[in-house]
């Protein structure tokens, strides 16, 4: 699964720390999700979509192997 968290953050000019504070997780956890090492739960994906003002599908996309 790929994601556009980095792009969305850049649009808002947010650091990983900023995003982490807004969704209630640690900066390391944001980094883990952003780099695709961890797939977030539906709740966390929805929280991210809400703070970015975007849909979950636009942030997280399935890849061929998924």
């Amino acid at each position, binding site marked *: 699964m790929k994601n556009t968290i980095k792009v969305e953050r850049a649009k808002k000019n947010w650091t990983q720390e900023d995003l982490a504070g807004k969704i*209630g*997780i640690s900066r*390391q*956890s944001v980094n*883990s999700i952003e780099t695709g090492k*961890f797939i*977030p739960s539906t709740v966390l994906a929805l929280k991210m979509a809400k703070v970015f003002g975007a849909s979950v599908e636009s942030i997280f996309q399935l890849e061929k192997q998924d």
Partner: protein
Amino acid sequence: MEQFKKTTQRNSIIFALIHGATYLPAVWLLKHHIFGQPVSIIITIVPIITFAIFIFKLIKAFSVMDEVKQRVQLEAVVIGFSLTVMLMMILFLLSLCDISNPGWFGYGYLVCYCWLFYFVGLFISKKKYGV
């Protein structure tokens, strides 16, 4: 919420230290047979109680972690548990053919190996998730 998380995690560390502070003197006192049997039984129970409280606080600390950190802890515990079981199986099978070294692999040492394996698991899991 953030303050609550920090307090909960600090509590688990404090109780880990309290457990260590009761376990090591208990081992020393029991090893040197300073007290009679009834007192020795009480001394044995004290570190078990502090360990139980520590585990309770640790589980509470896990519950307030975010999901990435919970996954890291879960995998660390699974790796640690698996390695400990493997070691115990090896020791049991070797003891069947009278190959054993209680000087290095007694019950007391198994506790240390168990913690060592947990930290090995934590290291692997942290590397995997980049946390």
